[in-house]
């Protein structure tokens, strides 16, 4: 057992913290938000230059050969500064779908562009009634000679408005809309005819899009992995996504806790700083405990990503999402509460963390949904211990 970071990982953490402290002040973030894409191409280029975008890609594709721990470190830093750039959509979701699912030719063509910041990706998976059910795919993929033809509508595609390529899940087989079998994954050039996008701002100031596909024709090399067999890939990447989101939420929580403690130390009411009121001290302590529990589970999720058995991974990810979701709701609500009126305002940082943490929790389903799933799986520990052989 070892919870320490390697020398390189510590360096990554420090470098990133320094960079973002400089590039991502609250005021600068506001400016980035006003740029055409709703985020900064300059920051994106810096992240590419520092090898952040390729941090979990193999060196032969322009990466630095890291893994889930590197992603955790980066996502945690992203959570602390409320990064607007499409790291999660492009690198965590898009990058992993390709790394784990694409063939060598596709990887060689796309991954270096991803690492250098030239290629933006988005994962177009959610549909109007799929909710958080990963196997619920209604978008259709039909073969026509050597081509594929896609029809359907995708919703809430994070950073789908700017992505050059969309990774689109579509049903090419299976018994019904809920079947894990029969789902395929395609690389769709966003400029292709039949692809339409409506981009919008999200509640937490990021960008997303609705995407519709009408008779979109794709050549056979647009298929990622084998036809009808994309579900395990999608699930594994969803797990990467959950671990990453958990790390980001922990970053946001750390900030909320620190900012609240700082505020309690300075705000004076009834002739004393608020930090003198024991009930508020205890609240700050409860927040701290919630952050620590969440941090532990975010690390648990990260370390369980390497687990090959999908059942084990599934339990771990649900467990992490439950703890982190609950912690984050408590920490967020208390952060606002303890700031009083000022915490309710757009001009105060804390509300932006609260909003972002709230929206992050909606990704891949909240604590309640995962509680239900974990319970259905029999909880975290198997009911009967397997007998030794």
């Amino acid at each position, binding site marked *: 057992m070892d919870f320490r970071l390697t020398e390189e990982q510590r360096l990554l953490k420090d470098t990133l913290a320094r960079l973002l402290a400089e590039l991502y002040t609250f005021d600068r973030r506001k400016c980035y938000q006003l740029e055409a894409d709703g985020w900064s191409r300059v920051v994106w280029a810096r992240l590419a230059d520092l090898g952040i975008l390729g941090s979990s890609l193999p060196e032969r594709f322009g990466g630095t050969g890291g893994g889930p721990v590197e992603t955790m470190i980066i996502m945690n830093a992203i959570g602390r500064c409320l990064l607007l750039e499409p790291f999660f959509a492009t690198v965590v979701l898009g990058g992993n779908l390709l790394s784990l699912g694409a063939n060598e030719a596709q990887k060689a063509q796309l991954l270096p562009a991803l690492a250098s910041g030239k290629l933006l990706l988005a994962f177009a998976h*959610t549909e*109007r*009634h799929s*909710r*958080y*059910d990963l196997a*619920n795919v209604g978008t259709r993929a039909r073969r026509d000679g050597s081509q594929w033809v896609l029809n359907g*509508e995708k*919703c*809430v595609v994070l950073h789908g*408005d700017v992505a050059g390529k969309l990774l689109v899940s579509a049903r090419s087989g299976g018994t019904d*809309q*809920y079947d894990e079998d029969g789902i395929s994954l395609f690389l769709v050039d966003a400029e292709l005819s039949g692809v*339409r*996008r*409506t*981009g*919008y*701002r*999200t*509640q937490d*100031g990021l960008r*997303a899009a*609705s*995407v*519709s596909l009408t008779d979109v024709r794709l050549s056979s090399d647009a298929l990622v992995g084998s036809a009808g067999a994309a579900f395990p890939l999608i699930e594994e990447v969803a797990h990467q996504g959950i671990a990453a989101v958990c790390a980001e939420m922990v970053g946001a929580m750390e900030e909320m806790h620190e900012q609240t403690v700082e505020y309690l130390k300075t705000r*004076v*009411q*009834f*002739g004393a700083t608020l930090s003198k*009121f024991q*009930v*508020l001290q205890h609240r700050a302590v409860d927040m701290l405990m919630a952050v620590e529990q969440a941090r532990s589970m975010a690390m648990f999720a990260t370390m369980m990503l390497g687990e090959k058995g999908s059942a084990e991974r599934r339990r771990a990810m649900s467990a992490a999402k439950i703890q982190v979701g609950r912690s984050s*709701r408590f920490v967020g*609500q208390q952060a*606002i*509460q303890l700031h*009083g*009126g000022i*915490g*309710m*305002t*757009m*001009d*105060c940082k804390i*509300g*932006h963390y*609260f*909003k972002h943490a*709230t*929206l992050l929790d*909606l*990704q891949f*389903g*909240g604590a*309640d*949904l995962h*509680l*239900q799933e974990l319970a259905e799986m029999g909880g975290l520990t198997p009911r009967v211990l397997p007998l030794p052989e």
Partner: protein
Amino acid sequence: MNLQFTSRELLFRDEVRDFLLSSVPRDISRKLRNDHRLSKDDIVRWQQILNAKGWAVPHWPVEWGGTRWTSVERYIFREEMQAFPAPPPLDFAVDMIGPLLIARGSDEQKRRFLPRIANLDDWWCQGFSEPGAGSDLAALKTSARRDGNKYVLNGQKIWTTMAHYADWMFCLARTAHGEKKQSGISFLLVNMKSAGITVRPIITMEGDHEVNEVFFDDVQVPAENLVGEQDRGWDCAKFLLSNERTTIARVGVSKARIRRIKELAASEHRRGQPMIEDRRFRERLAALEVELKALEMTQLRFLAGEEIDGRTGASDATASLLKIKGAEIQQATTELLLELAGPFATPFAGDEQQMTDDDGGRGLFVSPEWATRAAPTYFHWRKMSIYGGSDEIQRNILARGIFGG
């Protein structure tokens, strides 16, 4: 003990329901159902419909437009309005300054203001909080210097709800520096059109403009706009805090939202099943309904004047209890709605223009209208446990009731 309303009360309830059904404008109903912010005009329009019916200010004395309803009937009226839902009355006007003027105002003040309050010809705002005086309200610094037959007002208020709509503000200002910080405060009625007043918007985190900063720079307030005695304004403030608190829990609002959640949960699906069939979701909804029922019963108990801990009626302590639980439950309903919206809570639909389309054509489906309001409502309703005496301050009051001091 008997849970039933009397047949007279039931008749009354039906009368109120019929009235609401025929009188709440459809456009306003639609906004309320989808958690959209009401405009000033919406609220004025509704108040004037009520006033035409003679129901604008049921809790006032008859000579000023009140009804002879019993407290139970008044309660039924408010609850039915909240549950319908109809627009909430502007509490600063009909529940705060109106009753205060009736109790403490001069005859001239009553004649001048009360009819216009009932008809909402004047919009009122509450100028209590200041940057340095939130929970510790008595620390307020805005000063009113007496100068002949007027006061000269200087200082700053903050969080003033809808000051940008307001014609008048009721305001606490310091007229003397006494031993205790509660003494030396006066209660003034300030014309918002006076020279020297600047109203600056504060945008809250969900993006709405509801609250403001208000600055006073040598604002002249005629001495006749003092309510009660000079330096005794704290008594007026205390009167406001203890008046008409039976609806503070807003049980009707939560009822309406739970009804709405059930309705929406029938059309949102998970694994091909409507969410309303989802076991866990139903359990949470049911648990919330139990909490709400308990609160409703508690409220009714207080309303019926049952003794609690030797006190009767809505004392400070009972009002605090109702406020804490009411806020908690209202906030919980917004959490459930947010979860129901799920991924569709993501889009920010603050302004229609922000949806941009690749080919300039008609935009694609983005999200159901109600779902785009779920997150802003959740964010905004965090205020429930902060304003009007925060949860912590209410608990302090309850604790004093238990331990003294």
